[in-house]
């Protein structure tokens, strides 16, 4: 680097400060995120100041109101046309307010709302010392099985911190798919990851597994985000900026003024490609694509089931949103480089998830692997690289998240002495014991399997159609085959529930409070509506299929 350049650098650095104007923030357009984050902060204060026995109610009320309000805000923005015509970049280029962002934010908010209901369920666990308890530990700090824990339970402690944590996570997720520069992307990633790590550790039963899940999730998650960050660094190095638009321009080579430094780095594709690979890897980790999926089964199994449902649904939505934006906004010019790689990833993800699931014996792990397989299907839609691809993925995510939350909500109902009875053998003959619950779960399983008249089929058809139109016919064939494999283990569960005799020491099905009922009910309703009359939502997703740059 020449001396003059250094000098210029020094002078620029020494420019008078007053040139920097105050940033312009479109609060209206960021309102969903702001509401949720604000509510989260308030929630922390509530923890600090509200007496313990009211906290649960206040927190629940607060979160529900916040999420509902945020959703209303999203709807309002969409109605004012920010999803389509008035789509724009807000917050000094940090956040994009456009169709995909709003659609996904809406989905995340609804999913979060439903998930919050399952968080707040307090009828399933038997009374502990006369106190209604939810599925979260009394005092996270207390050693499992110690007197401390006993005392905490006796005192009727409950970890109401889960509500603000969840809100923080949701806040992060809202930003994630809307992030319009890599920094915001990274921050959002951390903002929604860290609370999730904590939530995983807070199970009331089987605490050791819960903590183990948290550790694994945390270490691997941090590991992954380190990769992402390094990738970001490389991209920054390549383009001299972290803003999507700028990077895209540089990639496509249409930049107005090229200073020597930029010219030097621009020439160096290695920076670009390695950077892209590392950033994408971080996102693939979050969506749980093979080979970055291995945390999924363990974490899903160990985490408190409501959290699992929340993670499985919302995280996927947010992560795929971010992935879409990255690939469609930043790297369209690089399509020919990343498409083949994604092909490979999609294929091994679909097949891997389906095949390994066949021999699972724990319902939560089973669903984990099924979620991996589904990630593969969605990737097929991502690869389409057409507006249809985007909208099909959006639709699939919406459909999938409700099915998932509903399914995990049902899992929380089937219990025996040791808490939830997640081992498949315990589910034998459930259909005889309580036909309704079994039938509902069967509906969810059929949706996972993609049987017509369920949302699963519509979504699958949408992404496969998009993929086929995008020239990925082979992917469709693989996808079809792996759905056939996947069908096998969904059916296995149905056989177990309906066609095998109930065991004498089988689990009981707890009757939940309206909260969980709502969660499950919403799940079923969405599943069937999106299966039978999906037109409206397909239109919505179709209109939302365009990214702003």
């Amino acid at each position, binding site marked *: 680097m020449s001396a003059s350049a250094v000098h210029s650098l020094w002078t620029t650095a020494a420019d008078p400060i007053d040139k920097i104007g105050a940033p312009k923030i479109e609060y209206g357009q960021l309102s969903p995120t702001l509401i949720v984050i604000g509510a989260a902060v308030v929630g922390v204060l509530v923890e600090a100041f509200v007496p313990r026995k009211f906290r649960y109610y206040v927190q629940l009320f607060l979160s529900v109101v916040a999420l509902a309000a945020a959703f209303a805000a999203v709807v309002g923005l969409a109605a004012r046309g920010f999803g389509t015509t008035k789509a724009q970049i807000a917050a000094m280029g940090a956040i994009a307010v456009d169709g995909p962002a709003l659609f996904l934010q809406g989905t995340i908010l609804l999913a979060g709302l439903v998930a919050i209901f399952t968080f707040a369920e307090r009828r399933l666990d038997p009374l502990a010392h006369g106190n209604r308890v939810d599925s979260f530990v009394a005092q996270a700090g207390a050693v499992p099985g110690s007197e401390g824990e006993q005392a905490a339970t006796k005192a009727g402690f409950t970890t109401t911190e889960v509500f603000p944590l969840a809100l923080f996570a949701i806040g992060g997720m809202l930003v994630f798919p809307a992030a319009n520069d890599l920094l915001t992307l990274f921050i959002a990633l951390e903002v929604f990851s860290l609370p999730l790590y904590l939530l995983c550790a807070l199970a009331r039963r089987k605490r050791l597994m819960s903590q183990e899940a948290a550790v694994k999730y945390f270490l*691997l998650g941090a590991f992954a985000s380190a990769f992402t960050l390094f990738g970001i660094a490389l991209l920054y190095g390549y383009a001299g900026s972290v803003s999507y638009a700028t990077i895209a321009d540089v990639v496509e080579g249409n930049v107005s003024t090229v200073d020597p430094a930029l010219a030097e780095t621009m020439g160096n594709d290695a920076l670009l490609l390695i950077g892209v690979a590392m950033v994408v890897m971080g996102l693939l980790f979050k969506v749980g694509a093979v*080979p970055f999926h291995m945390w999924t089964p363990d974490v899903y199994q160990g985490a408190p089931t409501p959290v699992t449902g929340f993670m499985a649904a919302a995280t996927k939505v947010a992560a795929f949103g971010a992935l879409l934006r990255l690939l469609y906004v930043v790297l369209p010019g690089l399509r020919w*480089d990343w498409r*083949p790689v994604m092909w490979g*990833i999609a294929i091994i993800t679909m097949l891997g998830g389906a095949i390994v699931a066949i021999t699972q014996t724990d319902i939560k792990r089973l669903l984990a692997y099924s979620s991996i397989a589904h990630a593969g299907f969605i990737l097929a839609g991502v690869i389409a690289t057409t507006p249809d691809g985007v909208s099909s993925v959006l639709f699939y995510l919406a459909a999938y998240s409700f099915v998932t939350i509903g399914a995990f909500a049902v899992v929380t109902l089937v219990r025996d002495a040791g808490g939830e009875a997640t081992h498949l053998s315990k589910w034998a003959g459930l259909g005889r014991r309580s036909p309704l619950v079994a039938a509902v779960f069967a509906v969810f399983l059929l949706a996972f399997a993609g049987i017509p008249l369920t949302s699963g089929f519509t979504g699958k058809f949408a992404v496969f159609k998009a993929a086929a139109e995008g020239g990925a016919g082979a992917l469709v064939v693989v996808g079809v085959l792996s759905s056939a494999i996947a069908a096998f283990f969904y059916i296995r569960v149905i056989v177990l529930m309906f066609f095998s005799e109930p065991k004498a020491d089988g689990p009981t099905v707890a009757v939940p409070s309206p909260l969980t009922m709502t969660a499950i009910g919403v799940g079923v309703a969405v599943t069937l509506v999106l299966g039978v009359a999906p037109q409206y939502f397909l239109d919505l997703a179709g209109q939302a299929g365009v990214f702003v740059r």
Partner: protein
Amino acid sequence: MENLIALLVAAPLLGAAVLLCGGRALDRAGHWLGTLLAAASFVVAVVLFADMLGKGAEERTLSQHLFSWLPVEGFQADVAFQLDQLSMTFVLLISGVGTLIHVYSIGYMEHDERRRRFFGYLNLFLAAMLLLVLADNYLLLYVGWEGVGLASYLLIGFWQHKPSAATAAKKAFLVNRVGDMGLSIAIMLMFTTFGTFAFGPVLEATGETSEGKLTAIGLMLLLAACGKSAQVPLQSWLGDAMEGPTPVSALIHAATMVTAGVYLIVRSGAIFNGAPEAQLVVTIVGAVTLLFGAIVGCAKDDIKKALAGSTMSQIGYMILAAGLGPIGYVFAIMHLVTHGFFKAGLFLGAGSVMHGMNDEVDMRKYGGLRKYMPVTFVTFGLGYLAIIGFPGLSGFFSKDKIIEAAFAKGGTEGWILGSVALLGAAITAYYMTRVMLLTFFGEKRWQPDAEGHAPHPHESPKTMTIPMIVLAFGSVFAGGFFGIGDRFLHWLEPVTGHKHGHSPLSAATVTGATVGVLLIGVALAYLQYGRGPVPVTAPRGSLLTRAARRDLLQDDFNHVVLVRGGEHLTRSLVYVDHTLVDGVVNGTAATMGGLSGRLRKLQNGYARSYAVSMFGGAAVLIAATLLMRAV
């Protein structure tokens, strides 16, 4: 007038429907109803016959179109009848003999609690048989063809509690099905060749197609005929069919159904005339069966089976005649009719004997019955004389003509066929005499039956004897009536056509020869059975005898080749289906499971190994991305 034709079929069909669907209420009167309707059909036949005689030879053909059965693009099948002299002959025979046998059965089946059903089946048979001979197209004929097969199946197996009966019935149906295959293929060939399968158009258009086609059609028709008329190689079922009640044997397996093959060939004369090879095959089949049946007839001790053998051989004569073409058609039918009389009579006689002997069928346990059942003896005797062709009786006229025609075929073929026919006549005389002697002459050799009742032979009731007498009349005079002055020839010629072959031998010579061989046959039989006492248990006998007792090993052949082979085939196929076809699928499932189990191991629970996979994944990802750019 032609609207009456449908009645012929409708009457017995109605009877069948009522008797089979109607409940026990009909048990008392059922048999009378059945007989009445059979008779009604006969009356209608007579009326039509009278009307037909009233017309000139040309406009004697009546036809009635009921409804369009199966109209499909390019494919027309109608339910329509055609009544010409040929059909008329059969209609009279069927309804006449049929009625008589109904009457006979009233007595014969008296003690059977399922008599109503029996008459229902008989009526069903009549309906089907009449449909067969009245149909004006091959497809409808096919319906009647299978219909009689069904009736025969039901009647052979009428005593279903006897496994032997059930098996015999099944066998009969299956063997016939093989024949039916031939018929249906023939019909398909006609359709593809002529675009139709109605008698008229097909038989007129035979000139317009190749001889090869005609030969194919002819052979297929022959196959059908073999099945129905128990000709070699499809004859094996007839012997077992004797498991059925005797009236059934008389009506179906002697007089009418088994002659359907002859009808088919004569009816399709135009086709065969165009296909000499096919005709040759027909004659060969006839000749072979003629001897085959006769030989079997000599060896059987079961009176009905002996008669069955003879039926086979007599039909052999007819087929032989039919194979001779225009020179033979008329005589084939003529012999068919006379045979209908005397063979039915003989069977009824046999039935009457069994009736008196506790259903004993082994002739070696009869003997000297003439004193005990005179009517039976006389009628049976007349039938016997008729069948061996005793001069002046029916058989003489018809059979003699056939032998003559056989010689008249000319060339070596003519000689061979003729001498075979003569030889057959001799053997016929031999085995029939044997039957006669064993049954009615010599000393009594009666044995108590299984329950230990000693038989008290007695004459049968009127309902049974009267039909026998009537048939006896037929067997005596029918031949003369037909033969003298070629009445029958003139009657049938317009339909079948007729040519006088130029026989190398004069008619007189042939007649002389026939009578000569006849006497030889009778003499041999008398020498063997007439003089000394007859052993009750059959002697071991010569190789031929033993073979003949086993139907010349034909069943054994079938058993080894078809039954055993079939069993092996099906068993192995079941295995294949289970292991191979199913195995492939289960195999894939198993492989998937195994693969899954193996992949599961990667999920070993150690966070660090997960990190390794991530790291590796990232490395691959980067490498791949760079590679993409490189290539």
